[in-house]
C-alpha cells in the first residue's frame, strides 16, 4: 500500500501544477486579460473548458485520497517513533517494497519464490475452489429455487453449515485428501458455495411469471425453459452470488495458507513473520488488497455485461 500511497502523493502536486499553469498561461501573453467566462485567445475553442472540467473532477479524486494516505503514513510514523519501536518505519517498508517488486518472479527453490508466484499460487487455489463451487452450486441453487420439496429437504442443512467459518473444514479436507493443496481448494469450495446456492435460488424464484408465461404460450419444453428463460433471467443474481463468493474466498485463502504452509501469499506472510521481516508483511497486505480490488473489478465488468436495464 505504501507504493500506491507514495505514487498518489507524488501525483497530486502535478495535477495542481497543471491547474495553475492552465490559468496562468493566457494571462502572461500579449493579449489583455480575458473577461470572466471568456475563452482566452490562443486556446482551442473547447480546450480550457475541457481541461477545467477534467481537473475539477480529477483534483478532488486524487487529492482527497492522497491526503488520507498521507495522514495514515504520518500516524504510522508517530506510533512507530513513540509507542511501538518494533514496527518498521515507512522508509524501511518502502525499501522492502522496492526490493520485492524489483524481482517478483525469482525462483530459488520450491520454498523460495518471488511474490508474484506466491500471489499466483493463491489465485490458482481460489479460482479452482471457486469454479468447483459454481459447478456444484448452480444446479443445486436451481433445484432449491424451483422445487419446494428440494428446498424443504435441503435448506435446514444449508442454514446450519452456512455460518460456519470455512477454516473449520480444513481438518476434514486434510483427512479426506491427505494433502494440503486440495485441502485449501476444498476450503475455498466450502467458502464459495453458500452464496452461490442461495443467490441462484433467490434469482430463480424472482423470475417474473410474465417471462414463464411467454415461454408457456410458445410450448417451450423443460430444457428450453431453463436455457432460454431461467438462466438468462437469473444471471444477475448468480453474478451477485459469485461476486460475494470470490471476495470472501480471497480473504479466506490467506488464513488457509497460513495453516497449510507451502507456497502462497498467506504462507508468505506467516513465513516472513517467522523471519521477523515485518516490512514484507506490510507489503504483502498491500498486495492482497490490490489483488482483491482487481478481482472485484473483474466481476463488476462481467456483471455490467449482464445488466439488462429496467425493461
Amino acid at each position, binding site marked *: 500500500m505504501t507504493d500506491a500511497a507514495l505514487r498518489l502523493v507524488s501525483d497530486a502536486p502535478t495535477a495542481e501544477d497543471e491547474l495553475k499553469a492552465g490559468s496562468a498561461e493566457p494571462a502572461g501573453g500579449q493579449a489583455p486579460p480575458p473577461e470572466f467566462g471568456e475563452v482566452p485567445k490562443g486556446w482551442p475553442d473547447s480546450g480550457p473548458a475541457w481541461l477545467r472540467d477534467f481537473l475539477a473532477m480529477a483534483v478532488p479524486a486524487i487529492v482527497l485520497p492522497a491526503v488520507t494516505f498521507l495522514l495514515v503514513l504520518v500516524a504510522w510514523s508517530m506510533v512507530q517513533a513513540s509507542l511501538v519501536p518494533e514496527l518498521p518505519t515507512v522508509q524501511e517498508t518502502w525499501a522492502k517494497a522496492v526490493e520485492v517488486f524489483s524481482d517478483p518472479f525469482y525462483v530459488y527453490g520450491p520454498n523460495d519464490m518471488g511474490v508474484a508466484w506466491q500471489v499466483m499460487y493463491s489465485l490458482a487455489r481460489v479460482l479452482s475452489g471457486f469454479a468447483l463451487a459454481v459447478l456444484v452450486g448452480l444446479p443445486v441453487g436451481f433445484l432449491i429455487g424451483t422445487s419446494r420439496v428440494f428446498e424443504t429437504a435441503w435448506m435446514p442443512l444449508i442454514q446450519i453449515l452456512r455460518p460456519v467459518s470455512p477454516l473449520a473444514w480444513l481438518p476434514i479436507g486434510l483427512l479426506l485428501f491427505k494433502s494440503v493443496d486440495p485441502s485449501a481448494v476444498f476450503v475455498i469450495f466450502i467458502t464459495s458455495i453458500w452464496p452461490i446456492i442461495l443467490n441462484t435460488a433467490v434469482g430463480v424464484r424472482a423470475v*417474473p411469471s*410474465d*417471462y414463464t*408465461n*411467454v415461454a*408457456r*404460450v*410458445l*410450448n*417451450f419444453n423443460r430444457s*428450453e425453459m431453463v436455457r*432460454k*428463460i431461467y438462466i*438468462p*433471467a437469473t*444471471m444477475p443474481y448468480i453474478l451477485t452470488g459469485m461476486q460475494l463468493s470470490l471476495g470472501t474466498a480471497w480473504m479466506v485463502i490467506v488464513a488457509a495458507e497460513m495453516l497449510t504452509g507451502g507456497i502462497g501469499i498467506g504462507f508468505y506472510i506467516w513465513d516472513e513473520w517467522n523471519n521477523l521481516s515485518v516490512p514484507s508483511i506490510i507489503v504483502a497486505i498491500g498486495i492482497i488488497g490490490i489483488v482483491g480490488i482487481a478481482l472485484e473489478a473483474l466481476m463488476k465488468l462481467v456483471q455490467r455485461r*449482464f445488466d*439488462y*436495464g*429496467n*425493461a
Partner: protein
Amino acid sequence: MDTQEHLRISKVGKIFKTSSGQYEALRDVDLSIDKGEFVSIIGHSGCGKSTLLNLVAGLEPISYGAISLDGQIIKGPGPDRAVVFQNHSLLPWLTVYENVRLAVDKVFAGTRTDGQRHDWVMANLELVNMEHAAHKRPAEISGGMKQRVGIARALSMEPKVLLMDEPFGALDALTRGHLQDSVMEIHARLGNTVIMITHDVDEAALLSDRIIMMSNGPAAGIGQISTVNVPRPRHRVELVEDPDYLSARAAVLRFLHEHRSEVAA
C-alpha cells in the same frame, strides 16, 4: 360471417383455492366468438376478465366447462392463442429482433428455413413500425414501442386468436391512440380473431364488433353484450357523431355505472 363455431366458451367456471378457502372467480361463462371477430371484455377491477383470458390462453386450468377452438378442446397454452401481455413481457436480455425471433424460431422450427424466418421477423416488425429498433434492447425503447414489439411477437406466431390483456393500459393517451389505430389497421389486413381486455369505454367501442360486459366478482359472469354496428374502417374523429357508436358507448357506460356501487374502491 362464418357460421362454424370458431371459439366456443361453454359454461366455464373458475374456482381458486386460497389459504382462506375457495374463491369462485367465474361462474357459467358462455360465449361464442366468430372467426375474424374483434371482441372486447370490459368490467370493473376484480371482475375476472383477466382470469377469463388466461383460461382461453390455457395459462390457468379450467375448473368446469370447456373451451374449444375450431372444434379442438383447449388443454393448455399454445401459439395458436398468442397473448399480448399487459406489461409487454419482452425478455430484457434479448434485442427487439431476438424477442420476436425467439417466437418465430419455436413456431416455425420445422417448416421454414433460417432466411424465411428472418424475413418473417422483419415483416412483423415492419407491421408495427418497429423495424428501425430491431437491434435495441427493451430497456432502450419507450413503453409504447415495447407494446408494439409485444404485438409483433404475438402476430408472428400466426395465431388463430390474438389475446390482448389491457394492452394499452400503461400508456399515455396519445401513444394509446396511435396504437389503437395500428391495431385496427392490422386487424383489417390480417383478419385475426381478437379478444381484448380493457377498462376504457372509448377504446372498447372504437375497436370492437362486440363488447362483453362482465358483472362483478365473486362468481362473475357475462352481464350484458353490446354490438357495435359501425362499418369499418373506422375513424375516431368521425365516430364522435355516429349514433350506433354513441349508443354502444352509452350502453357500456350505463352498465359500468350500475355495477359501480358493488366495488366500493
